């Protein structure tokens, strides 16, 4: 008997198109099961997408509001001196601030030591302050008028006032009809305007504003700035912020407090983070359950298709061909579920956002760098199917390594799990526990990566 030891060039190969067709054949053949399994994944992914989408849309809405107000507004206030007394800002501070290059506008207010009343017969000051200021404060704060007009070069010199929104409410003045007046230090001032609320400057809301000149002339006040508001070039906010204290009070920069009012609002946007993490965890559990569902179905599918696996082996499939088939199958399953789930989650997010009247992406200016945040973030969760498929694929491979059991010719149906006989080729299914632990670990790593990516 002559035996050539060399293997001839007989090769088993599977075209990519055929691999794909084979991989989805099982799904096409069992539509009901495919649908139910995909729904499991879809619900998990939908809940995660919705949680992330809704919370980031809510955050984006808040940030968009802040963006509309502007993040380039800085506020300077006196701090405390070494003795612990309230320091004073130099009179020339507003002018010095204005000389900083990137500062676009700066206005100061001076809190006067005077109360404001509805008329001279009461001394209830309603917790309101009287501020002396300059007409361009209005532009610096980007204010809006509810009624009337703001101070201008003329009205800043005569006894007129503009009311902040809260001040107007407390004084019981909601319209200018009938020429309302207020009493400051026993002197009557005509109300010429009412401001709308300024979310970034609640202190102005609670103030009554008069012109600097009028304050000096009618109230004998000394104008010492108690707050300076300034708008800077948006690109250079931090740079300006860093030099402000030294500019305003070069000798004692630590007696100057500089703040950015929008920071407080931004902080609010971060508060929901904990709740979001919790919900995200729930979503992850749902996804895990979906993944386990796929793994289960694939195990069942491998077991009930041992005949097919044996047939394919007999037809010349390599072990990798069989493994590929089942990986493709579960990957398709997961992709299907993923697509449905993402669509579902995005829909929920959009519907919810519209219901809440949140700013929609199209409401924002196209150049807004934060625009992308407000869309429901389509979290690209790696399909857990390939992970879930690792497990049954191990079984499939185990089956494939053990043709004697799986070959349709051997009509043995003993045992549920494939057990290989002898010659050490049954290594793939040596430890199903390791499979479970391995694929679960992998799942969590991937899930964590996708969450923090």
């Amino acid at each position, binding site marked *: 008997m002559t*035996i050539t030891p060399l293997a001839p060039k*007989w090769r*088993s190969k599977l075209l990519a198109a055929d691999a794909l067709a084979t991989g989805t054949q099982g799904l096409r053949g069992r539509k009901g099961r495919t649908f139910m399994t995909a729904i499991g994944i879809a619900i998990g992914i939908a809940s995660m997408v919705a949680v992330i989408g809704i919370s980031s849309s809510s955050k984006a809405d808040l940030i968009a509001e802040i963006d509309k107000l502007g993040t380039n507004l800085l506020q300077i206030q006196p701090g405390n001196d070494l003795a612990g007394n309230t320091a004073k800002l130099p009179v020339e501070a507003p002018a010095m601030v204005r000389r900083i290059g990137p500062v676009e506008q700066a206005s100061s207010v001076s809190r006067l030591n005077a109360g404001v009343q509805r008329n001279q017969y009461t001394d209830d000051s309603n917790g309101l302050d009287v501020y002396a200021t300059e007409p361009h404060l209005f532009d610096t704060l980007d204010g809006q008028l509810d009624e009337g007009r703001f101070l201008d070069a003329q009205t800043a010199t005569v006894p007129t006032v503009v009311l902040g929104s809260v001040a107007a409410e407390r004084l019981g003045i909601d319209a200018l009809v009938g020429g309302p007046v207020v009493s400051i230090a026993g002197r009557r001032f005509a109300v010429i305007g009412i401001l709308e609320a300024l979310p970034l400057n609640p202190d102005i809301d609670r103030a009554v504003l008069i012109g600097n000149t009028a304050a000096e002339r009618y109230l004998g006040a000394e104008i010492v700035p108690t707050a300076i508001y300034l708008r800077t070039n948006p690109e250079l906010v931090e740079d300006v912020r860093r030099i402000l204290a030294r500019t305003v009070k070069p000798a004692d920069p630590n007696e100057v407090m500089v703040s950015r009012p929008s920071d407080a609002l931004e902080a609010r946007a971060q508060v929901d983070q904990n709740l979001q993490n919790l919900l995200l965890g729930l979503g992850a559990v749902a996804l895990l359950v979906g993944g386990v569902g796929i793994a289960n179905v694939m195990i069942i599918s491998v077991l009930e298709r041992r005949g097919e696996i044996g047939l394919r*082996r*007999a*037809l010349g499939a390599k072990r990798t061909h069989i493994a590929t088939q089942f990986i493709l199958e579960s990957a398709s399953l997961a992709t299907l579920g993923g697509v449905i789930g993402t669509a579902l989650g995005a829909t929920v997010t959009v519907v919810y956002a519209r219901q809440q009247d949140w700013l929609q992406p199209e409401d924002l200016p196209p150049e807004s760098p934060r625009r992308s945040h407000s869309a429901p973030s389509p979290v690209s969760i790696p399909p857990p199917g390939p992970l879930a498929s690792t497990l049954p694929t191990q079984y499939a491979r185990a089956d494939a390594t053990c043709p*004697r059991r799986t*070959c349709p*010719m051997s009509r043995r149906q003993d045992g549920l799990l494939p057990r290989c006989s002898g010659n050490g080729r049954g290594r793939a299914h040596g430890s199903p526990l390791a499979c479970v632990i391995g694929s679960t670990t992998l799942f969590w790593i991937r899930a964590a990566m996708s969450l923090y990516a």
Partner: protein
Amino acid sequence: MANAEAPATAPSRAVLELTGVSKHYSGSPPVRALDDVTLSVDAGELVAIVGASGSGKSTLLNIIGTLDRPTEGQIAIEQTAVATLSDAGLAGLRSRRIGFVFQQFHLLEAATALDNVATGLIYQGIRRGRRRAMAKEALDRVGLGHRLDHKPPKLSGGERQRVAIARAIVGDPAIVLADEPTGNLDSRTSADIVDLLIRLNRDGSTIIIITHDQELAASLPRRVTLNDGRVVGDDTHGAHLPYQTPEPTGAAL
């Protein structure tokens, strides 16, 4: 094909050679499913491997089909030692050189007859269009050219087995291995299937049929009888060549 004039110079080119093949299954007690089997099958033969249940014929079939490896001994297919091949090499060998026919048919229920047969070529990396053309041709050969688009549930048992046979021969393998091909069929249909296998053999296919059916075996030119894992009989009537009528030998007498 009737080259009966040259029996002496018959090119006895063995497509299958088993030398001292044994297969043991460990366990208690250990099973010697095959014990020192030596067997040679030439191209163009039609061989029945006969034996009662438990005689080791399924084990032998798995070893011939390279689905299992022997514990001892060697097996060569077309002069290639199977032991030298990796799993991928064996898969390649099966995809191109061995065709299987099963008792349970093992057709894909959701696929048409044509696609089922074409599946036989899928692991040769042949494109779909050509696969289907070849499958059609094979179905014509087994007499099912009119049933290309029927799915297995719509086919009778005999027709299903014909589809399975077409799938086995579509790639023109060196060996067709048929495991109880008539086991699930009634006697009339069985006769048709045997006739078909004999006809395919006459057209040049080397066919090995595993069966416990003595009557079926008796109608084939060569019978290898197994008992308790040993070859107890290798009985050839007629020439060593495919199912030829006894006349040439008779004339020689």
